[in-house]
């Protein structure tokens, strides 16, 4: 059975179309990634699938239940970790878990047992009676993930689960997410800005930009799809190099400040030819590197931005800052 099936899902806020008729399905037991720049519509998509927002048009089912007409069935079968924190800081970790367990009508004995297990699993057992406001960002995130699992959902939504975490904690969480998926067969839909995260965890990745899915496949196939290896040449005159490389085996050229990125199949065979041609035109080369494409290249190819450009726009930092200030 499909865990999720979205058909032409659309959400508009006034004039702004945040999610623009996207369709996809996710198989049971899959880890599915939504990768996209700020404002692409990832959170909005998840909000619709988790019944938090009504689609403007289109339909979706989660575990076979329609998200509009069978809200309650959907809610029972999903767990969600929101992008922004959603803990009660005036309660302890245990009380946050207990509140959740009661809301999902898990009986007393069973509830206590699962809370104990999950808190141990995310390494918070010894801090369980501390107020959440004394927790670090990483501890809060782990608590939220544990909470999302308490009612044993079939589908788990993780909206930027590792945002703002240190590399060690992030790695720890990745292992944990992979294990959940492996051992319990939980279907996981996660959004992320971290290429490495998507690459390592996801069976399939949808690249979302301006409310539409611009590419959807396994990480391997996505890397293949953009046309082979990546050659980066830095030079005082990158524009001339770009004009020079018109051969049919060049599948793509991008100009940047002081460098040009060329995509081509079997780069190792063509490199000598490229270098000779540039040399003969009297253009200087500062450096030249060849590498296999990464997910970052794929992202750049489909959205026209690097994730670094995007970080530089500072939205993420501002968001974190605002959250920190509210506390």
């Amino acid at each position, binding site marked *: 059975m499909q865990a999720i099936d979205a058909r032409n899902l659309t959400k508009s806020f006034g004039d702004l179309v945040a999610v623009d008729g996207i369709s996809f399905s996710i198989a049971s037991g899959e880890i599915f990634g939504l990768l996209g720049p700020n404002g692409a519509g990832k959170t909005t998509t998840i909000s619709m699938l988790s*019944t938090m927002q009504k689609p403007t048009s289109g339909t979706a089912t989660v575990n076979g239940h329609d998200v509009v007409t069978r809200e*309650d069935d959907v809610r029972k079968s*999903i767990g969600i970790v929101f992008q922004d*924190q959603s803990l*009660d*800081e005036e309660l302890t970790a245990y009380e946050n878990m207990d509140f959740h367990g*009661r*809301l999902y009508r898990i009986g007393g004995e069973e509830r206590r047992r699962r809370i104990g297990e999950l808190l141990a699993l995310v390494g918070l057992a010894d801090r369980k009676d501390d107020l959440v406001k004394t927790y670090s960002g990483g501890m809060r995130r782990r608590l939220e993930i544990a909470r999302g699992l308490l009612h044993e959902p079939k589908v788990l939504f993780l909206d930027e689960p590792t945002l703002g975490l240190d590399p060690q904690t992030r790695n720890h969480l990745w292992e944990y997410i992979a294990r959940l998926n492996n051992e319990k067969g939980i279907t996981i839909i996660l959004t992320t800005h971290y290429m490495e995260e998507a690459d390592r965890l996801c069976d399939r990745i949808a690249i979302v930009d301006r409310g539409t899915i611009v590419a959807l496949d396994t990480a391997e196939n996505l890397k293949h799809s953009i046309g082979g290896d990546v050659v980066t040449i830095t030079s005082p005159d990158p524009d001339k190099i770009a004009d020079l490389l018109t051969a049919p085996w060049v599948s793509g050229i991008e100009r940047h400040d002081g460098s040009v990125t060329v995509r081509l199949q079997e780069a190792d065979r063509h490199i000598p030819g490229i270098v000779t041609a540039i040399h003969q035109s009297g253009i200087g080369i500062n450096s030249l590197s060849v590498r296999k494409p990464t997910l970052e290249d794929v992202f750049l190819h489909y959205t026209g931005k690097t994730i670094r450009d995007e970080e530089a726009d500072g939205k993420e930092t501002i968001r974190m800052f605002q959250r920190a200030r509210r506390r």
Partner: protein
Amino acid sequence: MDIVYTIWLRNVKRYLRSKSRIVGSLGMPLFFMLVLGFGLNSIVRIPGMEEGYLEFIIPGIVAMSVLFTSVFSGIQIIWDKQFGFLKETLVAPVSRLEIMIGQTLGGATTAVIQGLILMVFALFIGLQPAGITGFLVAVGFMALIGVTFTAFGIAIASRMEDMHGFQLIMNFVIFPIFGLSGALFPINSLPGWLRPLTLADPLTYGVEGIRYGLSGTAQVHPLASLAVMAACAVLMTVAGAYLFRKIQT
């Protein structure tokens, strides 16, 4: 019922934990009680009443404390919205009505506790306990005020994006409701044009009910007060539930 209890429990826990809030919101009522009560006790005579002004305003100040605490509890939903916790509740497979009722009862409970603390203080400055039945009548009216105005707070909070409007609501709704009620003066002594406003103010009946419970006399028949307060509690809860159903995170 489990869900209502869960939400109620969280509210009460948070309240009992916030010592500074408990102490802080005792400040103004105590101030009123001491300054107005003692300050005017010797110069104000209430026509047709045996006791002094101090005894007269104690029920009014208790009602005030319940009023403020409950409105504030209801409005707290805005914080839950801003801190994100509301999403956790709304995404759970529970009805909005259960959440709203749990919030209302939680707010009313904290408001009653706050009123009780004030009553204990009042014992030291002249409140004569009028027996257990009267006390229970007073608590019953406090609970009705609590439910009415927590639900009112929730209704407001469901429509507000942030706390900016809070001051507005306090100044133009809550203070008038307090001022126009018979909390600080006997309704019989009002000029004619003000009387309808006072009689239209739900808190008037709450104050009169508490006054009846604590001192055995009131200017409005206690059953009439009970009928009005109970109707207000039900109406406000329905209105609050209706608006809360449409709340957006």
